[in-house]
């Protein structure tokens, strides 16, 4: 078994009071805590640094608003890869493996964990490159399965419920004016026509008063 690795994040960089679910336990991250150590499930600390840098280019922190680093997208991806999704637990993985037409989708044998390991090799010393060099490198990888997964997972980590590890402090939902899950819009659905109606975003845990059941925590 490999040594337990951690992602160390300066709390202030992530916008103050944030909620994470660490190993199933609610964990309140305070800006004044200085640095926090988040246990990694799949990546090494060095790999997490590389993925963080790549996600930041895909969904940058810029004039439009916060990006992948502030949302904790790398933590989201780490947990997805360590869970049933990363291991293809629910994908049909019997052979024979044959290439087919595009209409049949991904027919490869490699699971998301394996695709990321190869992608990380291809990214090399990505975190140490200049922004310009990073953009150039990603542009050259655009057509790879790894890049397509990384882009998809970055969007997922920005806008999924924070119980999955991303969308920290609901900053993804605030960015786009999405209120999160709510119990009822019965009195609102046919009002506000042509006007923005923007209830304060709330997470599933905040709405239900109890933790959710993220699939990535499934055992076995």
């Amino acid at each position, binding site marked *: 078994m490999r040594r337990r690795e951690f992602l160390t994040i300066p709390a202030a960089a992530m916008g103050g009071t944030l909620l994470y679910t660490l190993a199933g336990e609610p964990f309140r991250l305070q800006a004044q805590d200085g640095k926090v150590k988040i246990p990694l499930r799949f990546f090494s600390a060095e790999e997490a640094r590389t993925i963080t840098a790549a996600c930041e280019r895909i969904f940058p922190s810029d004039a439009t608003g916060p990006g992948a680093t502030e949302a904790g997208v790398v933590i989201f991806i780490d947990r997805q890869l360590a869970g049933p999704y990363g291991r293809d637990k629910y994908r049909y993985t019997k052979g024979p493996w*044959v290439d087919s037409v595009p209409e049949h*989708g991904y027919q490869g044998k490699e699971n998301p964990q394996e695709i990321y390991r190869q992608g990380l090799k291809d990214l090399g010393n990505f975190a140490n490159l200049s922004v310009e060099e990073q953009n150039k490198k990603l542009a050259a990888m655009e057509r790879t399965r790894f890049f397509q997964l990384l882009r998809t997972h970055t969007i997922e980590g920005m806008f*999924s419920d924070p119980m*999955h590890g991303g969308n920290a402090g609901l900053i*993804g*939902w605030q960015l786009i004016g999405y*209120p999160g899950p709510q119990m009822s819009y019965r009195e609102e659905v046919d009002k506000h026509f042509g006007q923005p109606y923007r209830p304060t975003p709330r997470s599933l845990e905040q709405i239900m008063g109890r933790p959710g059941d993220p699939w990535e925590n499934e055992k076995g």
Partner: protein
Amino acid sequence: MTNLKPVDVAIIGGGWTGLLMAKEITASTSKSVAVFERGIPRKMEDYAVTMDELDHNIRLRMMQNTAEETITHRHSLKDSAVPVRQHGSFHPGTGVGGAGEHWGGASFRFQPDCFRLRSHLTEKHGAAKLSPDLTVQDWPISYDDLEPLYWKSEQLMGISGKAGNLRGEKIDGGNPFEGPRQHEYPTPPLKHSYASSLFAEAVRRMGYHPYRTPAANLSESYKNPDGITRPGCAYCGHCQRYGCMIGAKAQPTNTLMPVLAKRKNFELHTGSWVRRIIHKDGRATGIQFTNASGEEFFQPAGTVVLASFTLNNTRLLALSKIGTPYDPATGKGTLGRNLTHQVGVNTRIFFDKPLNIFMGAGELASRISDFDGDNGFTGGEDGLLRLGMIALGTNGDTPIGSFGIMPKGASKSNWGSEWKAAAVKWRDHSAAIGMSGEHLAYRQNYMDLDPTYTDKFGDSLLRFTLNWTEHEYKMREFALKIQANIAREMGVKFDEGPPSRAPYNVINYQSTHIQGGVVMGASPENSVVNKYLQHWDMPNLFVVGASAFPQNAAPNPTLTSLSLTYMAADGMINRYFKHPEKLI
């Protein structure tokens, strides 16, 4: 293999049709009924904490586990099939309630001409104009036969809507093209959203007849004839691909299970994967199943009801060697024949104002049937036989899935700052006008057992041989023109372009409306089951569900599946149990 104590009726599949069959049999007989469901138990209380787009809408947590069993697909007889390795174009459910838990709730009746489609097309165009590959056929029942059973199904679920044809009288605000109804809908239509109201106003100005989709999402509290009370929809926007946390959307677990739970002659076995129907001398003797621990059982039964999803209805009959597999080369055999899906095409539209699209319901939609069937055709449509319904729906927000939807050319890249700015700008400003079209049956589209790939037990997977034909490409082309005209009338931006002529794909979601394979008919020459869904070759075997549809109609299949189940239950209870032989 452990032999169990015999039951009178063994039902395979604990979804809408299997549980409805169980409810009907246990209501009026003392027969012992056992339902075998391969998935897990489900109940309404499970659903509140599942309002999570990632796990449910994207990772598809409620669907069948493709690692255990999937299907294979090929486009033509010349090709080799490959497995559908993860769900894409349709979403078979699992667990108690089946796909009836995660459905959207659309509950249409089929137009009367759908039930006599071969006769209708022949009368209209002449037999010579119909392609020899077209294998559409008449149903063995008419709209009038089904009307009282449609009404029973609508009452069961409390369907919300407004009649457009009440005993022949056309009513504004309903669908004037529907067959005559004897009763108004049990509950009024759902509310409008901003986007659906704009669509309704525009199509009305164009002279069409907008109506709100009849939906199993209740518009108000309703008590059904079984005494089950459910509340009105909360428009929470977590409907299709989710279970309803308040029971406003009719699902087997909130509509049938509360009744069945009180019946002493009913039992439900979850985690029970039925692998064969066992038979001898032309009669089913019972079923063989494997439980969640891998133990094998034989359940003797006097009557067997096969009520799983369309896919497994054909597959289990083929694995059990019941009936004659269809051969597309000779046209002989009936099992697996007339596989149909549904034909769709969307026009993506963009508004200047925000839509608050997160508020919605599975079937909150405004719709026209002015082009359903062959309504509105002038005769100059170049071989176009049938089309479908055109609608704009607001069924909830998908912040992940819809992020990045923007007008063509709004960003050069699909990542980075420019893309992010454009994606954020167009958030909540987009909807789609879409067609749900009739998929005709063709000689070359069918199901059989795959020669190569197997499930977790080593049993052959089901193989689809399925592709679009020139007719479906024409349908999309024609629908896109109408949709563009509606978008212009609405005064919105929209993406224009030639319709795709891509082959059938298993990646992008289309609809979970797969029909055929065990089709019903007037004779064993062109069907597997009779009008009571009784197998022609095996009188104590009934096969229920959309597998019985000779071909798809444009509307979604659930209401018609339930109505056929009522017909099968009537045949079984009132005729077959008294004289257990062939009913026809």
